[in-house]
C-alpha cells in the first residue's frame, strides 16, 4: 500500500490514546507489526509542546507517526495544531480532524475541506477524517488530499460499518485513491469486513486500547485485516437467495450409499 509516495506494509493503523500504559501500547504495536501510529497533539498535551516524554516513547518504537488534530472544532485550531505537529514530529503528514458535533464527534465536512485546502497548499500530506459522502470526497480530492479516511461509525462507538453501501460506493468511485476506514471499528470482524470491501487499511484506537488484553486484541486485529485483504484479492463469491449445492443432487448417488 502506498500512502503519499511511501510504501507501507501493515494495513492496520493504531491510535495511541487510552492504553493502560505506554509499555502496553508499545507491546501492542510490536505484536501487531503496525507501521503507522496516530498521535493526538491536542488531547494528550496540556500546552502542546509539553508531552515530550510520551512522544519520545512513541518515537522509540521506530515507526511512522501520523499526528492528528483530534479535538479541534474549527479550521483555525486544526491548522495551527497541524503546523505545531509538523514542527514537533518533523513530518508533513497530518490526520485532519475538524469536529462538528461534540456528542457524535461527527466531522464538520465544510471546515474539513477548507482546512484540507489550506494545509495541502502549505505542503502537508493530508489524511482527512470524513463521513462516507461522495461529494465530500470529491471536494477533498480537489483540495489536494490523496488519501481518504471515511468513518465506519462515530469515534469510540465500536459500532462497526454503519453504512457498508456508502463505503462500497466510495470504493467504486475512487478506485485509485487509498481509502482507510477510520473510527467506529469495535471488533476484528468489522475490520475484516472493511478490508473485504476493498478498503486499503483500517485505523482504530479504542477497540485495542480498552480491550481487556490490548496486546492480544492488537494481534487479533492484525489477523483480521490480513484475512479481509486476502479475501478481497481472492475474489469473494456473490451472495444469492437460493441454495446452490456444491455437489450435484440429481439421483443422489452419494446419499444412496
Amino acid at each position, binding site marked *: 500500500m502506498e500512502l503519499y509516495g511511501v510504501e507501507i506494509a501493515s494495513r492496520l493503523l493504531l491510535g495511541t490514546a487510552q492504553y493502560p500504559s505506554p509499555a502496553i501500547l508499545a507491546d501492542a504495536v510490536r505484536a501487531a507489526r503496525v507501521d503507522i501510529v496516530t498521535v493526538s497533539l491536542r488531547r494528550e498535551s496540556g500546552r502542546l509542546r509539553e508531552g515530550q516524554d510520551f512522544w519520545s516513547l512513541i518515537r522509540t518504537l521506530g515507526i511512522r507517526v501520523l499526528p492528528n488534530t483530534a479535538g479541534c472544532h474549527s479550521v483555525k485550531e486544526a491548522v495551527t495544531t497541524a503546523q505545531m505537529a509538523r514542527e514537533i514530529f518533523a513530518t508533513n503528514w497530518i490526520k485532519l480532524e475538524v469536529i462538528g458535533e461534540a456528542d457524535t464527534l461527527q466531522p464538520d465536512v465544510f471546515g474539513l475541506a477548507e482546512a484540507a485546502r489550506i494545509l495541502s497548499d502549505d505542503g502537508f500530506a493530508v489524511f482527512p477524517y470524513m463521513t462516507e459522502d461522495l461529494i465530500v470526497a470529491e471536494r477533498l480530492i480537489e483540495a489536494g488530499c490523496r488519501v481518504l479516511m471515511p468513518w465506519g461509525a462515530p469515534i469510540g462507538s465500536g459500532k462497526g460499518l454503519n453504512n457498508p453501501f456508502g463505503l462500497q460506493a466510495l470504493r467504486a468511485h475512487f478506485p485509485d485513491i487509498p481509502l482507510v476506514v477510520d473510527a467506529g471499528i469495535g471488533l476484528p470482524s468489522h475490520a475484516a469486513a472493511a478490508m473485504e470491501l476493498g478498503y486499503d487499511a483500517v485505523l482504530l484506537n479504542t477497540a485495542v486500547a480498552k480491550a*481487556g488484553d490490548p496486546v492480544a486484541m492488537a494481534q487479533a486485529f492484525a489477523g483480521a485485516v490480513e484475512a479481509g485483504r486476502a479475501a478481497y484479492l481472492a475474489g469473494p463469491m456473490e451472495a444469492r437467495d437460493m441454495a446452490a449445492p456444491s455437489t450435484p443432487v440429481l439421483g443422489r448417488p452419494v446419499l444412496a450409499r
Partner: protein
Amino acid sequence: MRVTVVGAGVVGLTAALELSERGAEVEIVERAAHLGEAACSWCAGGMLAPWCEGESAPAEVVDLGAQALDWWARRVPGVASNGTLVVAAPRDVGEIERFAARTLNHERVDETRIGALEPDLAGRFRKGLFFAREGHLDPRMALGALRDRLAERGVAISFGVDGAAPSLFAGAVLDCRGFAARDALEELRGVRGEMLILRTKEISLARPIRFLHPRIPLYVVPRADGLFMVGATMIESAERGSVTARSAIELLSAAYALHPAFGEAEIVEMRADVRPAFPDNLPRIVRRGATNYLNGFYRHGFLLSPAFAQKAAATILRDVRDTNENHRQRRRA
C-alpha cells in the same frame, strides 16, 4: 542505621515511617518550605480503591493496593472505609458493564440501593457498581498526620533543603522526589493531572463516586466541612502550570452531572500537578550506588506507597546489614 529520605510527599513519608518502625534512624529532607507545597500527593484524590483501579491497572496494583486501607487506618485518623460507588449517565450505562467485566469484588446496585447508599443521589442513577471493601482518606490530613507521627518518633523533616545530590548525606539515601528525580531517572515521565475543590452544604456523600464516561471518566471524593475534591484529568504532559479552561469545564460538568447542586457550589481551589510514571505505570525501586530511588507511583501514590515503602525499607535495611557484616568479616580476616 542512618537513612536519609529525600522528599516529603506521600512516598517519602510512608517510607520514612516504615524505616523508623523497623528501627532505622531516619531524617527527611524536603526542598519546599512547607509540607505539601511541592508534592503532587497534595493534589491526590486519596481513594484507596484497588479493585476500581483494576479496570485499567495490572493485577499487581490490585494485589499490592489491597493492603493500603489497613495500613493507613492503623496510622492516621479519618480513614473512611465506606466503599466506592460507580455510576454512569443513562446514555453511558454500557460503561458500567465494561467496568464490571474488568473488575472484581463489586456488587451490582439498582436505583433503590444507590438511594440507600447515597440518599442525595436517590433517583438520579438506575444502575451502578458498589465496591464495599474500598475506602478513602483526605490526603492533606493524612500527610499532616504522618508528619506528626514521625515527629513523635523523633524523625524530623528539614524543609528548604534540596536533596538532589545524594553524596551530601552520610549513610543510606532513599530518594522519593517524584517527578523532580527525572534528572536521575531517564525513563520517568510526567502525567499531568488537574483537580478542583468545591464547597457546598447542599449535598453530602459518604464515599467517593466514580462517574464513568467513555472519554472523560472522573470522580468526586467527599471531604470534611462540605468540601469535595473533583478529579482528575490524565494528560501526557510534564507541565504543572495552571488548570486549562477545557479541563475545568470537564471537571465541573462531571460534578454537575452527578448532582445539579454542584452548579451552585463555591470553587475553593483549582490546581494542576504532575504524576511521576515509568513506561509501565508501575512504581519501581531503582538502586544506584548508595542511593535507592522509590518512584513512578503514577496515579497510585496513596494506594501503593504502603506496599512499596515496606519493600524499600526491607531492601535498604538488608543492604545496610550486609555491608556491616562484610566490614566485620574483613576486620576479622
